[in-house]
């Protein structure tokens, strides 16, 4: 894709304009996309991968994949949805690589959740959830995405997304209650 320098990109482009300019290889448009989502993407990746460095790598990889594939982006979902979907795939890839290399997640030697302040206990309990429960919880409760957005990212019905969130919270409540006893 040819590189383009800042062209006629409005100060506050619509998502469609941003997607168009990204498709044309306008790096300024990519930078705007990055500025809009990077903070939340880093946090989400951090919660999935457990280290800031790994999270930054995942975000970088996601943006490079977005740049490579954006010409084929047909706008069937929103650009942001698509970018988050790519990020999640990058995170899963990183986790798989880690498994292959028999690495463990960055060491976090927590005591049992019950003896901890709630924030730390919750972090610990989150690690005990299954993948779908954890990702929905992280996106909804931690990062503040809407059910409709999460459903689009995960390509599941909105009702399923709500149900997974409920399962996640029930499971967390159970873990935190049991370990507190």
């Amino acid at each position, binding site marked *: *894709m*040819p*590189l383009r*320098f*800042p062209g006629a990109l409005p100060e506050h482009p619509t998502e469609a304009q941003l997607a168009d300019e990204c498709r044309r290889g306008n*790096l300024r448009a*990519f*930078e705007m996309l*990055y*500025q809009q989502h*990077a*903070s*939340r993407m*880093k*946090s989400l990746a*951090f*919660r999935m991968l457990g280290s*800031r460095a790994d999270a*930054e790598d995942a*975000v*970088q990889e996601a*943006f*490079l994949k977005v*740049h490579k594939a954006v010409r084929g982006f047909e706008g069937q979902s929103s650009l942001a949805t698509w970018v988050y979907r790519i990020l999640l795939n990058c995170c899963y890839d990183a986790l798989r690589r880690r498994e292959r290399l028999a690495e463990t997640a960055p060491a976090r030697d927590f005591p049992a959740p019950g003896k901890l302040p*709630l*924030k730390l206990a*919750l*972090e610990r309990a*989150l690690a005990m959830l299954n993948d779908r429960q954890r990702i929905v*919880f*992280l996106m909804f*409760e*931690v*990062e*503040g995405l809407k059910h409709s957005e999460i459903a689009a990212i995960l390509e599941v019905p909105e009702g399923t997304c709500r149900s997974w969130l*409920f399962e996640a*919270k*029930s499971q*967390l*409540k159970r873990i*935190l*209650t049991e370990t507190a006893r």
Partner: protein
Amino acid sequence: MKFECGDLEQALRTPELMPEAREHLRFCAECRREYQLWLQISSTARSLHEEWETPELWGRIRSTIEAGIQPAPPVWKRWPVLAIAAAILLALIATPLLWQRAHTPASHAQPGANGDDDFLTEQALAEVEKNEAAYRQSIDKLSRLAEAKLKKPASPYVANEQEKLLAIDSAIDETRANVKLNRFNVHLQTTLADLYREKQQTLEELLSREQKN
């Protein structure tokens, strides 16, 4: 329905049951603790959002993108390749012609006399040189207009155009030097004209963009 402790989970899933659940919570300390924990999970979750500065991350992404994309160099950057190609072509065309001229009476050895358009006649050359001078003058005018913007590039776009113009100028100088050595060569004259056209377009685009901004 009589609300019991085991119904709390169902009530959390079904908002319609919440009024009854609230009534139950007033008297049941254990359910109250569970319900509070339910609410605390959500409120505490917000604090799990992790924010940290990564000023270098976009730069890393950008430079990886730029390094991964090597656009085909524009014609003004391919000048040495073109020059070599032109020289080879010229040699291929000129060798039989020179050989023919060496074996032809002098009166027939005028450039272009054999219908060979790769060599210019004196008259055509004078015309070309006159046009070139006029073209150069008009481009010089454009250059003067753009000079102030190029001296202090205000954006990456202008800096890029400045670099491009420097490369074009250097290619023009080189081609003109070659033209001086071989004034009748059509290919060199065409290359020179292409370079002037490239410079003119670059300057016009720069000025029109800067006017819009």
